[in-house]
Every structure is written in structure tokens, then in C-alpha cells.
């Protein structure tokens, strides 16, 4: 092996590796909520209370986390893009509730859901407007 080749081969290898890992990082998939274990397990009243008491603190705790929430269904509706939205029943002392935007792959299981039913939903918390918002949700238990 000549001196030139000794330099070229490691250099090519390094470049290939950089491109490979670069592309892998660039195309990194979103977190799979269905398979992921929840970071926080709570219920709909507790999470809404925490956000109403201290939004900044709750933001730090919940934002971007996979949160598993249990509660009773108040309303099931479809958005304009045909995604399903479940609103949890709120407790009487407070205003606002938890709204879960479900992944489109979840639609089949929703035919059986009824208002008032107790369910468990897992999703990513994106924050609090009038209600706590969870996105990319899936049903854990009906």
C-alpha cells in the first residue's frame, strides 16, 4: 500500500461514516407513542389542576413528555381533517379540561366509545390554552 492510499482510505471511510450518520440523524423518526412507555401517569383532574395552579411549573413537568391520562369521556368529535378528538369530563370546581387529539391510525377502535365511559389515553403534552392539550394520542385501555 502506497503512502497516498494510506491517507485516502481512512479519509473515504470517515466521509462515508459522517454522511451515513448525518442522514440517519436527519431522517430520525418521530417518537412512537404507541410503543413508548409513559413518562408520567396521571388522571384528567390532576393534570388540569396542576396547570391551573401554576402553568409555568406544569409546563416544565409535562411539556414534550408522554403522558398517560385516565378519565371519563365528555365528548368525541371529528376535526375537519377527520382526526378524532376526545374531550375529558372536567370536574365541577374548575373551568377547562383535557383535550386529546388522536392519531389517525386509532380511528377503528373509537366506534365503541361512549360518553361518560372511563378510558386511559397516552399522548404527548404540548401545553395549556383553555385546556390541557395532548397530541398524537392512542387509547391504552377502554
Amino acid at each position: 500500500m502506497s503512502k497516498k492510499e494510506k491517507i485516502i482510505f481512512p479519509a473515504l471511510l470517515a466521509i462515508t461514516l459522517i454522511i451515513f450518520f448525518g442522514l440517519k440523524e436527519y431522517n430520525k423518526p418521530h417518537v412512537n407513542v404507541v410503543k413508548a412507555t409513559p413518562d408520567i401517569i396521571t388522571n384528567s383532574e390532576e393534570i388540569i389542576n396542576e396547570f391551573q395552579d401554576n402553568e409555568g411549573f406544569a409546563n416544565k413537568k409535562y411539556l414534550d413528555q408522554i403522558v398517560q391520562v385516565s378519565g371519563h369521556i365528555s365528548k368525541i368529535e371529528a376535526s375537519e381533517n377527520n382526526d378524532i378528538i376526545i374531550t375529558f369530563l372536567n370536574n365541577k370546581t374548575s373551568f377547562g379540561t383535557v383535550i386529546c387529539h388522536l392519531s389517525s391510525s386509532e380511528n377503528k377502535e373509537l366506534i365503541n366509545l361512549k360518553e361518560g365511559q372511563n378510558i386511559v389515553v397516552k399522548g404527548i403534552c404540548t401545553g395549556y390554552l383553555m385546556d390541557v392539550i395532548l397530541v398524537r394520542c392512542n387509547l391504552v385501555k377502554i
Partner: protein
Amino acid sequence: MKYIFTIIICFIITNNLIAQDRYITKQGTISFFSHSPVEDIEAINNQILSIVDIETGDIAISVLMKSFMFEKSLMQEHFNENYVESDKFPKAKFTGKIIDIKDSTDKNKVFIEGDLTIHGITNKVKVKADIEVDNNVSLKGVFTVLVADYEINIPSVVKNNIAKTIEITFSLNHKKFK
């Protein structure tokens, strides 16, 4: 403290019940689009909260920055962590007025004027929108913002990947406040 808050909220609700002109949506859509020679970036947010009063024309919109969904998770990560700093500024807000809601020459076109806050920076904006008022109040439109106006720093490495002007599309279908 909590009781006072509840009382105030109840007050607002009853006020709303008396004034039957308020319309609300919690599922409005706002998307933005950045075109550059290197790549096109698009993100969509379906969790927009917007309240409009068709009597006075007042409008208030709240947006969770973390609710913007990107095609690639890396883009979403960079957007939240480096550009709009969602942990520091979790919400974008718009408060303003539909200025010609009563005397618009074209029945379906209005101008909305007000303060838009993104990344903690507030700027005056004036936006043209399509309006439809029947049982619901629908507002739709497109406008552009300059990234630099909101002091969002784009590192020079990715300068060519992100447009200087971002196109924002909104579609808010308000229902009567109950």
C-alpha cells in the same frame, strides 16, 4: 385564591352567555411554510384556540408552539429548542380587531389588525382574510412574517435551508360559545 379565580371565570362565562356574539374554536388550524433552494419546510398545528366577537370585531388567538407538527422530527426539535425557544416562550398570541366587520365593501373580505407575539416579541400586523358568517364564523387567510422581526436567530450553517420570509396560513372555524 382558587375560589376567587373560579368566581372570576364564572363571571366571564355568564358574561359570555349574555353577549351572544362570541364564537370560539379550540381546533383551528395554522400552518407555516418556508421555501428555500435547499429544502421546503412545513409545519401544521391543529390545536389553535381562537375567540371572536362578531359585534365588536375583537379577536384573540392563542397558539402552542410545541403543537406544530413537522414531517421530520429533527426539524421539530430544532424549531422548538433553537429557533422559537418553546420552553421559554411556549405560546404565540394574537390580539386584535376585524376592522371592517360591519362596513366591509366586499362582504367576504375583511382586514384583521393587531399585535402578533412570537418568541416574546410583539409586532403590529395587518392581515387580509376571507370571512363567512352563518351559524359559524369562519376566518381564512394567508400572510407572511419576517423571521428577523421576531429576533429568531438562524445559525449561519442552516441559513440557506430556512427562508427569511415565512408564509403563514390560517383556517379558523368558530362555533357559537355555549
